[in-house]
C-alpha cells in the first residue's frame, strides 16, 4: 500500500507505461494542510485516517485501499490543483479531508463536478449546505454556524444580559458572530473585528474592560486563540468576566495555554470524553499510537474513512454504483465517534452539541469536559436553501 | 554680453557647516574653453554638480544660452545641450561601447517611447554613434563590452557619449585623471581639437593640460573664485600663488 503522494514528474514518466488503476483498490485522496504553522491540524487528521485504516485492517469495504495525501498549504488554488491531480492522475474514487472553508469552496465543486464523492471532514461553509449542496458531497463535521448557534443558545439560556463579541475580520469571523446572534437575543454591547492573524490584543482588551460586559464571546482559531487567551488571563480578566468561545480552545491549543484556559467554555459536537464505544476506542488507541490527545479534526477524519467504508460495503465493492453508495451514506450506518446521527437533506449531520469546559483532570492535565447538552439533533440553518430532495 | 553662453550669479551651496560654493559669479563665453582649478576640497566638483543639475544650489542663479536653468534637473539641462563627464568614470558597463554611444544619440534624438523596432538596427542611431566613437578613436573597439575597455578608453567613451548628444557645452570633471602619460596626451590632443567648436568648462588638476587647453582660468579656494583670467594672468597673480600654488607646494 502506498500512502504518499507520487511526485508529478516521476508520475508523468510512470504514466507513460503504467496500466490503468485496478478496480479492486479503493483510492482515496485526502487533502489537508501538512506544512507550515497550520500543519499541526493536518497531522491530527492524517494520523486519524491511518488509525481508521488500522482499525479496518487496512481494507475499506473489504477492498484494498490506497490513500493519497495532499498538502494544500492553506491555499485554495493549490487545493484545487491537488483535487485535479487526484481526480485526473490518480483517478481516485473519493476525495476527503479539507480544513479550510475557502479551500473547500474551491475543491468540492471540482470533485463533485467530475462525478466523484467529496467527503468533507472539517470545513462546512454555508454555501455547500445551501444552494451549492450536491448529492456527491457529504461531510462528517458540521456546518460552520452550528457551533456558535449552540453557544448563542447556551448564553441565552443562562440569561446573560449583555455580551461583548470579538472575532477576526474575515468571513468566518462574521459567520460565527451571526451564528451566535441567531439564538442569543439579549444585547451585544460590542462587536469587534480584529485583523486576521493579529498577535496583540491588549488594545482590544482595554476597550473590552472599559465596556464592562457580563460576558465575552470570542472566535479565535489557532495561534490567535492562544495569544488572546494568554493576554486575557494576563489582563486579569479570567476571573472577572466569563469567556465563552468556539473553535478557540481545543486539544491542540490546550497544551500551549494550560491554566490560562482554565474555566473556558466552548460548544462542540464532540469531545474526547464522549461516552460511546467507537469514541473510546478511537481516543484510547490514538493516545497509544501517537502519544497525544486527539482533537475533533481527527475524530471527523476518522469518521470520514468509516463512512466511506460503510458505503463501499453496502454496494459490495462495486465502486461504479454511486447511487447505491449515496443511499448508504445517507443512512450514516457506521460507528461514528460522536455516536449515532442522521443526515439532513443537504448531507450535513443532524447532531448534538455540548457545552464543554476546560478543567484540570485528576492527573493535573488540562482537558475539555462535557458539561451538558445544549442542542439535541441540531439542524443547520441553510438546509432549506438546498434543492436536493430524498 | 551677447556672447555669454553660461552666466552664474551669486551661486551658494552649503553642506552642513561647509560652504562648498560661496557666492560664485562666473561667465563663460561661447566657444571658450574655461578651466577651473583649485586645491582639493575647493568645491570644484560641487560647482560642476550644480551646473549639470545634480545638485540644487541654496541660492543664486544659472543662465544657460540666455535661459534660467537654475531649477531644471539634469536630464532637462542635458537636452538643452549641457553634456558632462564625471570625475569617476560613469558609463553603462553592461553594454558595448557602441551601445553606450547609441543611447546617447537616442537621448538627444528624443522619441524614446518606441516599443517595437530594435534600437540596435536603427541606422539613424547607429551611424552617428559610430561616428562619435571614430572621433574619439574607439572605432575599432565598438563591439567590446564597456566594462572590458581599458581605463583610458572608458574615459574616451564618456567623451564620445557627451559629444553624441551634440552639446553646446561640455562639462569635464578631471578628464585625464588616472590616465597614463600616453593616454593623457592623446586626450589632451583630442580636446584641443574640440576647442572653438564646443564651449568647454574643464575642472583639472593636471596643470600641463590646463595651460594647453584653457582660454581662461578661474581659481577656486574654499568655495570662492578668487581669480579669473588668461593663463598668463593667472600664472602671474600673487593672490593665486599665495592661496593656491603656495599651499599646494607646502
Amino acid at each position, binding site marked *: 500500500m502506498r500512502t504518499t503522494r507520487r511526485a508529478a514528474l516521476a508520475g508523468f514518466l510512470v*504514466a507513460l507505461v503504467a496500466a490503468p488503476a485496478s478496480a479492486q483498490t479503493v483510492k482515496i485522496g485526502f487533502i489537508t494542510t501538512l506544512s507550515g504553522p497550520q500543519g499541526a491540524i493536518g497531522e491530527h487528521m492524517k494520523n486519524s485516517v491511518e488509525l481508521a485504516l488500522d482499525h479496518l485492517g487496512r481494507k475499506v469495504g473489504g477492498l484494498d485501499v490506497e490513500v493519497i495525501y495532499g*498538502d494544500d498549504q492553506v491555499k485554495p488554488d493549490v487545493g484545487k490543483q491537488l483535487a485535479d491531480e487526484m481526480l485526473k492522475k490518480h483517478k481516485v474514487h473519493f476525495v476527503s479531508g479539507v480544513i479550510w472553508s475557502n479551500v473547500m469552496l474551491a475543491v468540492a465543486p471540482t470533485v463533485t463536478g467530475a462525478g466523484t464523492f467529496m467527503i468533507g471532514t472539517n470545513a462546512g461553509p454555508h454555501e455547500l449546505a445551501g444552494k451549492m449542496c450536491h448529492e456527491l458531497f457529504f461531510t462528517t463535521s458540521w456546518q460552520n454556524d452550528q457551533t456558535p448557534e449552540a453557544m448563542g443558545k447556551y448564553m441565552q439560556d443562562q440569561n446573560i444580559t449583555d455580551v461583548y463579541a470579538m472575532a477576526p475580520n*474575515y*468571513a468566518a469571523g462574521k459567520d460565527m458572530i451571526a451564528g451566535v446572534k441567531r439564538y442569543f437575543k439579549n444585547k451585544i454591547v460590542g462587536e469587534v473585528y480584529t485583523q486576521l492573524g493579529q498577535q496583540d490584543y491588549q488594545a482590544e482588551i482595554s476597550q473590552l474592560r472599559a465596556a464592562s460586559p457580563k460576558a465575552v464571546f470570542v472566535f479565535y482559531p489557532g495561534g490567535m486563540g492562544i495569544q488572546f487567551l494568554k493576554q486575557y488571563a494576563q489582563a486579569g480578566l479570567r476571573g472577572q468576566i466569563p469567556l465563552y468561545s468556539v473553535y478557540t480552545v481545543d486539544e491542540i491549543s490546550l497544551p500551549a495555554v494550560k491554566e490560562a484556559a482554565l474555566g473556558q467554555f466552548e460548544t462542540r459536537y464532540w469531545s474526547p470524553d464522549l461516552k460511546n464505544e467507537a469514541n473510546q476506542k478511537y481516543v484510547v488507541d490514538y493516545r497509544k499510537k501517537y502519544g497525544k490527545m486527539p482533537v475533533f479534526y481527527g475524530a471527523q477524519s476518522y469518521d470520514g474513512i468509516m463512512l466511506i467504508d460503510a458505503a463501499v460495503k453496502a454496494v459490495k465493492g462495486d465502486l461504479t454504483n454511486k447511487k447505491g453508495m449515496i443511499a448508504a451514506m445517507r443512512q450514516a450506518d457506521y460507528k461514528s465517534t460522536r455516536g449515532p446521527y442522521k443526515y439532513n437533506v443537504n448531507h450535513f449531520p443532524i447532531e448534538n452539541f455540548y457545552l464543554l469546559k476546560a478543567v484540570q483532570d485528576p492527573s493535573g492535565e488540562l482537558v475539555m469536559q462535557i458539561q451538558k447538552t445544549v442542542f439535541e439533533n441540531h439542524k443547520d440553518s441553510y438546509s432549506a436553501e438546498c434543492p436536493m430532495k430524498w | 554680453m551677447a556672447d555669454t553662453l553660461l552666466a552664474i550669479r551669486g551661486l551658494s551651496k552649503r553642506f552642513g557647516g561647509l560652504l562648498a560654493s560661496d557666492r560664485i559669479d562666473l561667465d563663460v563665453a561661447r566657444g571658450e574653453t574655461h578651466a577651473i582649478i583649485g586645491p582639493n576640497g575647493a568645491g570644484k566638483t560641487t560647482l560642476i554638480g550644480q551646473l549639470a543639475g545634480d545638485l540644487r544650489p541654496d541660492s543664486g542663479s544659472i543662465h544657460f544660452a540666455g535661459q534660467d536653468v537654475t531649477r531644471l534637473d539634469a536630464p532637462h539641462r542635458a537636452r538643452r545641450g549641457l553634456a558632462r563627464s564625471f570625475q569617476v568614470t*560613469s558609463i553603462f558597463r*553592461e553594454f558595448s561601447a557602441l551601445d553606450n554611444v547609441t543611447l546617447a544619440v537616442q537621448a538627444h534624438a528624443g522619441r524614446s517611447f518606441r516599443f517595437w523596432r530594435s534600437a540596435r538596427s536603427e541606422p539613424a542611431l547607429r551611424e552617428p554613434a559610430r561616428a562619435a566613437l571614430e572621433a574619439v578613436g574607439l572605432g575599432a573597439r565598438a563591439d567590446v563590452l564597456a566594462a572590458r575597455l581599458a581605463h583610458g578608453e572608458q574615459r574616451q567613451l564618456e567623451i564620445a557619449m557627451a559629444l553624441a548628444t551634440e552639446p553646446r557645452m561640455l562639462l569635464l570633471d578631471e578628464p585625464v585623471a588616472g590616465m597614463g602619460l600616453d593616454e593623457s596626451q592623446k586626450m589632451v590632443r583630442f580636446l584641443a581639437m574640440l576647442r572653438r567648436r564646443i564651449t568647454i568648462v574643464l575642472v583639472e588638476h593636471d596643470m600641463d593640460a590646463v595651460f594647453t587647453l584653457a582660454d581662461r582660468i578661474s581659481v577656486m579656494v574654499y568655495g570662492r573664485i578668487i581669480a579669473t583670467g588668461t593663463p598668463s594672468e593667472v600664472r602671474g597673480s600673487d593672490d593665486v600663488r599665495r592661496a593656491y600654488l603656495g599651499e599646494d607646494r607646502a
Partner: protein
Amino acid sequence: MAISRRTLALVAGGALLALVPPIAALTNQPFYLDLFRRMMIFAIAAVSLDLILGYGGMVSFGHAAYLGIGAYAVGIPAFHGVDNGWLQWGLAIAASALAAAVIGAVSLRTSGVSFIMITLAFAQMLYYLGISLETYGGDNGMRLAGRSRFGGPIDLREPAVFYYVVLAILVLLLTLGNRLVASRFGMVIRAARSNEVRARAIGFSPFRYKLTAFVIAGGAGGLAGALLANQTEYLTPDFMHWTRSGEIMFMVILGGMGTLFGPVIGAVVLLLLEDVLSALTTHWQIILGPILILVVLFAKRGLFGLVAGAETRDG
C-alpha cells in the same frame, strides 16, 4: 555558438509545451494539462515581473497584487453575470495597469530597500482590501461562476483549448517582451538600471520610462491573474499575499533574471520542485529553503544560463 544553443533551447522548450496536450491525451493523463497550464500562468506573471526586475532593476515585492486585481476583474463581473471574456480580461489588464500607475508613481520616488518595502506595503493594503470585500467572499474568496466566454471556437471549458490560449499568450508576451527590451524604450530602462546617473546625464528622465514599464508589467501581471482565476475557478485575497510575491520573484531569479525565457523555466521548476518535495516529506520546506539560498549564492545567472550557455543577457 551561444546563439544557436539558445535558439535550440527555446524551440525545444516551445515544442515540448505545445506537445503536452496530445501526450496527455494519449496517456490518458489529462492532469498534466492542468499542471502545465498552471505553470505557464505563473510563467506569464514571472515574465511580466522580469520586465521591470531584470531589465529595469525595479525590485517590486508586490507583484502578486496584480495577480489578485486581475483575478477579481474576472470574478466580480462574473459574479454579476457578465461572463464576456474580452471585457473581463480587458478589465483585468486595465485595472492592474491603473493600479500599477498609482503604485509606481509613489514607489518610484524611492529606491533600494524603501522601494522594496513600499511596493510590499501597497500589495498588503490591497490584500486587506480584498479581505474586506464581503460581497465577494472576503477572506474566503469566491468561486468563479464560470470560465470567461469568448464565443466561437475559443471555449475555455475545453481543457486543451484553454491550454493553447495560455500558451499563445505566453508566446505572445515573450515575443512582445523580446521586442520591447531591444527597442528604444527597452534600451532606456536597461540603461537606467545599469547607471541611472549616467542615463540622466545624457538627457533621459528615467522616471517616465520606469513608470511606463511598471504599468506594462502590471497589466501583464493582471492578465496572468485573469488566467489564474479561470484556471482555479476560484479567487481569494491570498493571491495577493506577500509570500506569493516572493514566490514569483523567486521564479524570476531561479530561471535567470533579465532573460525573459528564464522566468518560464523558473516557474516550471519551482512548481515542480514544490510538487516533488512535498510528495517526499511534509518537511519539504527545510529542503526548499536551502535550495533557494544555494541558487542565489552560486547560480547567479539562473537555470536559463545553464541551459542556454553564456551571454544569455546583456545590459
